[in-house]
């Protein structure tokens, strides 16, 4: 008789039980990956439509982005700003904010770092670098922190205000590099004065990429620990799910929104710092490279999970690194990558409707087998 009292689940083979536990977690990976592949397919159709070969396209992306040490260097140089810009979207997103003005924080961070670097020429190199990092992060944090504050204090839509901030930041950059901080020696491309050699950031040992990549990895880890392993992050997740419930619980919702926004902005400002100190050597229009916008796509593809941001940024960094080769070899315009990114973005958002709908990912589907 006792065998009849066993619950049915226990009599199932371990494989089914294993799947029943695993599949709900697998959903979070399978749907974005599936959507990404669907995006590749849609873009392939687009390429066929304009008379180009999708096989050649993806082969060139592989060649220019991932096949050799040189191409990895190209890719990784884009990973640092992409990761940091994506965090500027992902951190506020945990509180339900859609912030898309990371480009502005990058620009302001880079400008602040360059101006501080010029002013700190007399300081020891270590102190000068530290001042540049702090200035870049502070201005970036102020920019996006203000967006969060406007949202929570005045109800101003953060998507619109952050993008307006980006346009204002670009106007400020143009004003300062054309006027007060212009290096008279920069004729064709107005820039701030070039940084002293001691204030430049070099490459990491063994990896042909600057230290910004490591900073990006560290920022991802810090963000992940903050969100998943601290009470602050727990409070932020509650507030992101339901603001009213969080307020009833007495959580400091305003401070959380402003704090997470400011931290995201500070990371984007850090990206601006590395663009100036490790790539361009001064602040100029090259700071407006669109990393802030690609970072939005990275964050959404990673579903705002800081640990997933890194591999996604490497993937998209590779695509962006291959843009030049694709233009030359396939005679396609530079906007090709933008079309690709737009298509992937739309399909990724479309895939949001699949969560909880696919029966293969529910525990019950496997337990009743």
């Amino acid at each position, binding site marked *: 008789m006792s065998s009849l009292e066993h619950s049915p689940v226990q009599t199932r083979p371990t494989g089914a039980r294993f799947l029943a536990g695993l599949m709900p977690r697998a959903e979070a990976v399978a749907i974005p990956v599936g959507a990404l592949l669907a995006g590749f397919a849609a873009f392939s159709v687009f390429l066929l439509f304009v008379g180009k070969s999708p096989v050649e396209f993806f082969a060139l992306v592989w060649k220019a982005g991932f096949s050799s040490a040189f191409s990895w260097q190209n890719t990784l140089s884009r990973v640092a700003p992409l990761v940091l810009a994506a965090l500027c979207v992902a951190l506020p997103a945990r509180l339900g904010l*859609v912030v*898309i003005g990371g480009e502005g924080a990058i620009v302001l961070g880079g400008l602040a770092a360059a101006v501080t670097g010029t002013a700190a020429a007399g300081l020891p190199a270590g102190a000068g670098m530290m001042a540049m990092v702090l200035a870049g992060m502070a201005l970036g944090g102020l920019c996006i922190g203000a967006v969060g504050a*406007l949202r929570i*204090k*005045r*109800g*101003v*839509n953060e*998507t*619109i*205000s952050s*993008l*307006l*901030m980006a*346009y*204002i930041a670009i*106007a*400020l950059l*143009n*004003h300062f590099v*054309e*006027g007060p901080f212009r290096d008279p020696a920069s004729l064709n491309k107005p820039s701030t004065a070039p940084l002293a050699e001691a204030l430049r950031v070099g490459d990491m040992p063994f990896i042909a990429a600057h230290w910004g990549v490591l900073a990006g990895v560290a920022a991802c880890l810090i963000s992940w620990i903050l969100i998943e392993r601290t009470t602050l992050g727990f409070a932020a997740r509650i507030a992101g799910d339901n603001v009213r419930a969080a307020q009833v619980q007495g959580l400091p919702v305003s401070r959380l929104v402003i704090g997470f926004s400011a931290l995201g902005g500070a990371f984007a400002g850090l990206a601006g710092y590395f663009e100036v100190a490790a790539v361009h050597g001064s602040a100029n229009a090259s700071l407006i490279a669109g990393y802030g*916008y690609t970072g*939005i*796509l990275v964050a*959404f593809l990673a579903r705002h999970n800081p640990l997933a941001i890194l591999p996604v940024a490497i993937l998209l960094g590779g695509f962006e690194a291959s843009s030049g080769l694709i233009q030359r070899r396939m005679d*396609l*315009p*530079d*906007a*090709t990558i*933008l*079309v*690709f*990114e*737009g*298509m992937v*973005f*739309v399909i*990724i*958002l*479309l895939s*949001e*409707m699949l*969560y909880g709908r696919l029966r293969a990912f529910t525990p019950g589907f496997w337990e009743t087998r």
Partner: protein
Amino acid sequence: MEPVEIGLWGVPLAILGGAIRVSTPFIFVSLGECLTERSGRINLGLEGTLVFGAMSGYAIAFETGNPFAGVLAAALAGACFGVLHGWICKFKGVNDIAVGIAMMLLGMGLAFFFGKPYIQPQAPDLPAIALGWWSDIPQVRAALQVNVLFIAGGLLAVAMAWMFRTTRIGLIVRVVGDSTDAARAMGLNPDLVRLLATAAGGALAGVGGAYLSLYYPGSWTEGISSGQGLMAIALVIFARWNPINCFWAALLFGGAGALGPALQSVGISQGYYLFFAAPYVLTLGLLILTSSPDRAMQGAPLELSLTK
């Protein structure tokens, strides 16, 4: 005609002329967004629609030699973007604000992709009407060269306000925008109404884009829009979802955008690049002033995710 020396009077005159010239795309995009938002949906992708409208309008005007064919093509292209946006947002769990951002990137990407061959050639311009015929001063005449689309935009604002207030279609859009449940109870299909409102809104944004490339600045470049589509969306909030207010707000924004060039025309070039920021600062300032902390914004459609 020789320019007459009119001194500092040139500044307000240049701002007026600039306001009329610059405001037209704002009028069309904000009226389109007003219609879409009144149905309870937000379309942040109108910036991309505007740019694609500018490209397609220019391309078709160049190929056919008729600027109005370009305007029509831009409207059709904008409607296609609107339909896509409306169709995607229909699904449960899809965030319409995020979809707008994606559509913005896609629209700009497609416009730059297909627009490469049209950067060089010169397409025919849209005609303007000389409303300054009564004046002998050339600056006044220049300021009052009013494009037909500006006048069409003004009439459209009045027509849309009338539509919302007195017609059956206006009532349907308003009901859907205020309560999905009430609309269903009335036997309406909210998804279909929103799809059509988003498509019509996209078409208007496309027309706004065609104005950019076919009249002012009057050629197709990749930098043709500097956030006009997005500012127009902010402007709808400021205008409290009222089409007539949208028209006046668009004129105000156009004037702000004309401030820098107007001051430069009388020799004030200090902080020239800062004046580029004027429209954005004005938009942000007005957004801050007109938003309210408790988020219950007066006049906002109740189903709008922007205000929830």
